[in-house]
């Protein structure tokens, strides 16, 4: 169906190719998973399938890519629209019309399909993807999962033989992601569509894949059976890591298979109490932030409802809940920049020598410059805060904003050892060139840059709004290390996230929000394991044993523990 013959791609101005000598063939009806770290060329590989690379993106493509017998060299993307359907990360970006039905028909209108056939296909697609109730709705009114299903439907109506999905679930919450992936697997099984899928959160999709294309990062491509490729791949979901640690062969890829294979492991681990994921703090820290009865309402509709929350020093809290459950509203109101309808927030002052206010304060009532010395917030789109031409300028600006206002502040900075933004950035993400344009950084680096800017004000409470969105496994591991370190300095860190695996590894405490209420609040192990939906893969495989992460298992395994000792 798809053939890559000796394909290399070089972008203009780049000194080395993104893809190098790629030979690949994907058969009809396969679900092919494309895995790799950020920036290794996954999007380039996917874009080459329908000719967006190089027709749209520029650059040079050597070799040839053939789809259903058509060479992309002679066929620009629009001429391949009837063979390849492409769905991107954010469905809203690709919508041309404004209601569901018209969006489904758009591709067919371009392909000049007769009205009678169009009508029939739209009805079929509405049923296939469960969109019939939404047919007249405006696209921007739909939830993220529904939008993404419409986006898939809108390319399906052209009856393409190949579907290319570039991280279709990265902007969705777990339920919405399940919805979309269920739709995709149904297409593969019912219609025999060939699917090429790139996805960061492998734990969700790896069990459905027929084949895995791994991009190790040097421009080369490794393709093969999932269980073979994952034996050696640098990127792997927890289930695969557990399988490798336990030495299972072949590697199980679904929780069901893994539970079968894990029977001996469970007996071996039965008597062992797992080490805590994160070392318990020596003494419970003092309350840094106390919120009482906080309510946020937009035009009378409550987003956060009378929430009581205390944040302690040295603690990492994961804030979970579906999209629209009030996570962002809560974080913004705690920081003082968002609206608050009622309730109180009290933040303990910074340590001795810190430049912030000296007594307890409500960030809402303080000027913005003071509020950010008490509570720092990194918003969902960190780039909203960046507006200068280089990393260097951004960092200087951050120093000026934090300390330049008052001369005593600058002295305080030197005296108390509050580090400069550059020093902070080097600690969080070493080796970023100061001359780089902020937009050219990877997602993880952008996050680190904004984090460094916010940390320049030395807040003791730090709130991160969905920082894991769009991060790959490596970036997430780095983020966990950063969060760990910040908590180690006696700060209180709150991370709102959909990512259970991340929460299991990073957080001491999990708070679950639903419709603006706190429905669960407790130590990570208790909250996460208690619910089958929220449980991380390792917990699902080893339940009823209370293990959450692979590292807990490896350190508890006989042999490993002794070697470490």
């Amino acid at each position, binding site marked *: 169906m798809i053939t890559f013959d000796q394909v290399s791609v070089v972008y203009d101005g780049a000194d080395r190719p993104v893809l190098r000598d790629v030979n690949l063939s994907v058969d009809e009806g396969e679900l092919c998973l494309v895995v790799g770290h950020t920036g290794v060329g996954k999007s380039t590989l996917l874009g080459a399938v*329908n000719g*967006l690379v190089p027709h*749209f993106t520029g650059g040079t493509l050597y070799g040839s890519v053939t789809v259903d017998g058509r060479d992309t060299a002679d066929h*620009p*993307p*629009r*001429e391949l*629209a009837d063979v390849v*359907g*492409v769905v991107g990360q954010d469905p809203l*970006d*690709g*919508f*041309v*019309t*404004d209601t569901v*039905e*018209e969006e489904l*028909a758009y*591709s067919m*209108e*371009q*392909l*000049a399909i007769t*009205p009678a056939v*169009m*009508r029939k296909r*739209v009805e079929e697609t509405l049923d296939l993807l469960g969109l019939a109730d939404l047919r*007249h709705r405006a696209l921007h*009114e739909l*939830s993220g999962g529904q939008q993404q299903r419409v986006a898939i439907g*809108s*390319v399906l109506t*052209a009856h393409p033989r190949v579907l290319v999905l570039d991280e279709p679930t990265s902007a969705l919450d777990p339920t919405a992601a399940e919805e979309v992936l269920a739709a995709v697997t149904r297409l593969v099984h019912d219609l025999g569509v060939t699917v090429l899928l790139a996805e960061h959160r492998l734990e969700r999709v790896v069990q459905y894949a027929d084949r895995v294309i791994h991009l190790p990062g040097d421009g080369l491509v490794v393709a093969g059976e999932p269980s073979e490729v994952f034996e050696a791949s640098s990127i792997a979901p927890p289930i695969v890591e557990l399988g490798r640690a336990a030495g299972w062969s072949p590697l199980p890829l679904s929780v069901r298979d893994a539970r079968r294979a894990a029977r001996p492991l469970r007996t071996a681990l039965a008597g062992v109490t797992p080490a805590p994921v994160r070392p318990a703090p020596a003494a419970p820290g003092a309350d840094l932030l106390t919120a009482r009865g906080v309510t946020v309402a*937009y035009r009378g*509709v409550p*987003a956060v409802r009378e929430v009581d929350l205390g944040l302690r020093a040295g603690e990492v809290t994961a804030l979970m809940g579906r*999209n*629209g459950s009030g*996570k*962002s*509203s809560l974080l913004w109101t705690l920081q003082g*920049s968002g609206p608050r309808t009622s309730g109180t927030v009290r933040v303990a002052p910074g340590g001795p020598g810190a430049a912030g206010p000296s007594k307890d304060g409500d960030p809402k009532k303080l*000027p*913005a*410059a003071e509020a*950010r010395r008490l509570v*720092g917030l990194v*918003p969902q*789109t960190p*780039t*909203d*805060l*960046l*507006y*200068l031409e280089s990393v260097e300028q951004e960092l200087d600006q*951050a120093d000026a*904003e934090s300390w330049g206002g008052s001369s005593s502040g600058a002295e305080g900075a030197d005296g108390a050892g509050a580090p400069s933004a550059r020093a902070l950035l080097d600690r969080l993400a070493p080796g970023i060139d100061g001359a780089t344009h902020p937009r050219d950084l990877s997602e993880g680096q952008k996050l680190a840059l904004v984090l460094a*800017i*916010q940390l320049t004000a030395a807040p003791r409470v730090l709130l991160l709004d969905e920082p894991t969105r769009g991060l790959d496994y490596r970036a997430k591991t780095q983020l966990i290390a950063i969060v760990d370190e910040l908590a180690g300095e006696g700060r209180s860190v709150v991370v709102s996230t959909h990512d259970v695996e991340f929460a299991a590894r990073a957080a001491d405490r999990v708070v679950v929000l639903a419709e603006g209420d706190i429905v669960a609040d407790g130590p990570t192990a208790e909250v996460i394991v208690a619910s089958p939906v929220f449980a991380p893969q390792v917990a699902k495989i080893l339940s009823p044993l209370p293990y959450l992460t692979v590292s807990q298992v490896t350190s508890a395994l006989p042999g490993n523990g002794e070697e470490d000792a």
Partner: protein
Amino acid sequence: MARTRPSATGPAAAPAPDTGGRRLPRTLHPVAWWIWALALATAVSRTNNPLLLFLVLAVLGYVVTVRRTEAPWARGFVYYLYLALTVVTIRVAFRAVFATGMRPSDHYLFSLPHIPTPDWYAGIQLGGPVSLEALLSAATDGLRLACMLCCIGAANTLANPKRALRVLPGALYELGVAVTVSISVAPQLVQSVQRVARARRLRAGSRKGLRALRGIVVPVLEDALERSLRLAAAMDSRGYGRAGSATPRSRRLTGALMLLGMCGLCAGAYGLLDPSAPTLLGLPALAAGSLLCLGGLRLGGRRVTRTTYRPDPWRFADWAVASCGVLSAVLLFVNVGYDPAELNPFIERLSWPTLPIVPAAAILLAGAAGFLAPPPGPTTPHAVRRTEEAA
């Protein structure tokens, strides 16, 4: 509204029993609404009789209330009313300030301080005595303009503007797409300005002057640019702009036809409006120009290979609505059965204007569109309100 209710409960399952075949709910062809509204606006241009103008407003209000849908664009009529009010106010205020003096027979109302203007500027006075007659004539003038605005507003409210663009001939399709896309981008831009402005506080950046502007404009524009690139990529991969069967020769021919046609149209319009122009410039030039333009559009449309999903049908109701609008305009132009002076009563006499029967009937006839048009299509089950979390 009672008439639309049965449709909302499920048109497919239970066709409204009292309506009969052609009364099934559907949205009227957008062009029908536009013809109706523009014809009414033309009729309005004939009169400044306040009674007739208020009658037009009443008719517009009735038709809009009965036949609009629940869609976002259909909630805009009230803004046109505000705009109309502003027009009248401005008109009256200007008339008061740039006073034109008083005749002995005028009724004195009040006086504004007179500002002397230099001799070479003698045509216009600032301030001075203001008469009731002057204000009334300004108000009726403003009201006429306001009525025309409301006609356009009604068309925009009753017909989905995007669907209206779909009836553009194939050759102008690209233009339609550009407009459609820009309409949908505007709200996104507003949203991202709000988001970035809120995020500024997190950095406690300067909130005044050029610096603050830069802090908002740069991220928003970068965002918008990236988004439009992604949209372009998406449209490209969905088949937008597939080559039809156009050859360079046919494209040149199209261009030439259109250009000539436009020249003909302009010349024709000039000939019709200027009585001193030779008669050959009038209708014949106009007709030739239209023919050439049509030919150009037909030829240009042929290179586009595209179909339309669920095109709006043009049936009896569409004819009825369009023609009742046109008929009322015609009645106001033919001067039959009434004294044309009644359309533009003299303010000077300061008497209550009379209501000429035929023009009033003509305007009421336009109001018949309210029940000639079928009830609007099934209203969408109201959207689950999305929380403002993401905003």
